[in-house]
């Protein structure tokens, strides 16, 4: 069954994740529309990464379901979700260190291109797109951190995802590098890819996203336009403590 374009690309319905006694996600229901850039924010330990891993298929949720592109993908493993159009990056970069940059991207490209020549061509195009073409034949281990982040994005883009999950790709970069990153995310969306990004740095992410979802203590605290979210007393209290929220 092909999904109607109006349906959201991604939906989580009442998702719970427990690790022993720890509840990392409780009853999280979010949706991401086609063509949106959605920011997933929240203080440390809010359950952002867990939710991300559930969406990417690293582990199945304890309870609840995940609907992607109109299909229930709750029990599909990560590789299968990639096949269906979920691409992701990792918070701690996971480049294939002994492989060249182009070879890293080819691994991603192979899922849609079985002919090697075409996979290689696709990988070059993606590297061009991400501004890494000049580094194509360098070993991934020789890249500087900001380039590694971009390689993560390039590799995920080579799988031709419908939804790109970016896990703190802008964190830890210099302001200039972060700005280049922001432009890349905009370019990605302009190319028709929906983006869901976890981010810490509010001042960078807020102007970029269409919508922000704030997680706190495993629950959805608020969601809405970035300008509204940052003024929300609950959000301020979650980030800075109650005293500041009272002041607001």
């Amino acid at each position, binding site marked *: 069954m092909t999904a109607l374009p109006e349906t959201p690309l991604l939906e989580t319905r009442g998702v719970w994740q427990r690790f022993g006694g720890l509840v990392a996600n409780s009853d999280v229901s979010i949706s991401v529309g086609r063509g949106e850039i959605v920011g997933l924010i929240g203080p440390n330990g809010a359950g952002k990464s867990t939710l991300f891993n559930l969406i*990417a298929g*690293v582990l199945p949720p304890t309870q609840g379901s995940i609907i992607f592109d109109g299909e229930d993908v709750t029990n599909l*493993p*990560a*590789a299968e979700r*990639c*096949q269906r159009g979920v*691409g*992701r990056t*990792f918070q701690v970069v*996971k*480049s*294939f*260190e*002994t*492989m*060249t940059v*182009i*070879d890293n991207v*080819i*691994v*991603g490209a*192979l*899922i849609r291109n*079985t002919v*090697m020549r075409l*996979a*290689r*061509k696709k990988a*070059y195009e993606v590297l061009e797109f991400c501004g890494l073409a000049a580094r*194509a*034949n*360098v*070993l991934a281990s020789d890249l500087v951190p900001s380039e590694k982040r971009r390689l993560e994005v390039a*590799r*995920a883009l*080579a*799988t031709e995802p419908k939804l790109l999950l970016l896990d703190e790709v802008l964190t830890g970069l210099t302001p200039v590098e972060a700005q280049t990153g922001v432009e890349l995310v905009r370019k990605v969306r302009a190319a028709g890819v929906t983006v869901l990004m976890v981010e810490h740095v509010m001042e960078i992410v807020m102007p970029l996203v269409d919508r922000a979802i704030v997680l706190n203590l495993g629950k959805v605290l608020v969601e809405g336009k970035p300008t509204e979210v940052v003024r929300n007393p609950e959000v301020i209290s979650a980030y800075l403590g109650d005293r500041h929220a009272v002041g607001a």
Partner: protein
Amino acid sequence: MDANFAQRRRRDLIMAFCLAVIAALVPLFVKDVYVQNIMVLTLMYAALSQSWNILSGYCGQISLGHALYFGLGAYTTALLFTKFGVLPWFGMLAGGAISALIAMALGYPCFRLRGHYFVIATIVIAEIALLLFQNWDWAGAALGIDIPVRGDSWLKFQFARSKLPYFYFALALACIAWFVTWWLEDSKWGYWWRAVKDNPDAAESLGVVVFNSKMGAAAVSAFLVAVGGSFYAQFVSYIDPESVMGFQFSLLMALPAVLGGIGTLWGPVLGAVILIPLTELTRSFVGGSGRGVDLIVYGTLIVAISLALPKGLVSVFSLFPWRKEAAR
């Protein structure tokens, strides 16, 4: 960029072809049977190590139990021939197929283990198989199997008078193992294996089914090693569990690749060409006092190489421009 890559691939192929031709001509000048014997073993270990390299070098699943597949190949061929009169040529294929199946059956539980735990499992399984064969009466138990040799025959693949047929077969085997590696290197599997080796989680997120990739690598690797084992059984015409399934074979498959450059196309060949003649010669010249000296040579070499050239000997050859970027 693309042209460079294709050019490098072609250069590898041409170089391999030239080396094979040169190797094929060597027996015209070297008539000494002892030296020919060493050449056969060198080529055989080059082939074995190349096959080992597929699973352990490219896919990163370090196996120190490949003696199992070597022994299975040898035993399948020898048993089929002595018990049922099946020609060794079919025995080779049967041995390869059985080994590939067993590799996958063992991989099913073992590939859930990571790192050292996997290595330990491979050693233990090979040792268990060795014990089973030592106690399996039908297969000759600890006494082994004597393959009756009745004159030279290509059909039965046995030659009493000359080493040359074995030499050419071993050369062909080394070429096949090299070519399979060369071909796989620029295939979907080749990229998937290297991705699995470097980072399984990232690989999975890019659509690589990690488990299946490991299974594929194990099957190909075990198949080729078993063919080598079948060849060895014919070559020595007498096998017993210790002489085809002993732990030293697992090591002798791993060491050339490690020495030459693990996970590289030329590493196993280079490693075998240096290591095997060296150990054979030390064994015969220093010999007499036992099996220890060649092991000291191994040990010293491995320590020296891992200190000086952690990426293996290939990294010093700009002559082998395959992955120049990898060597720097």
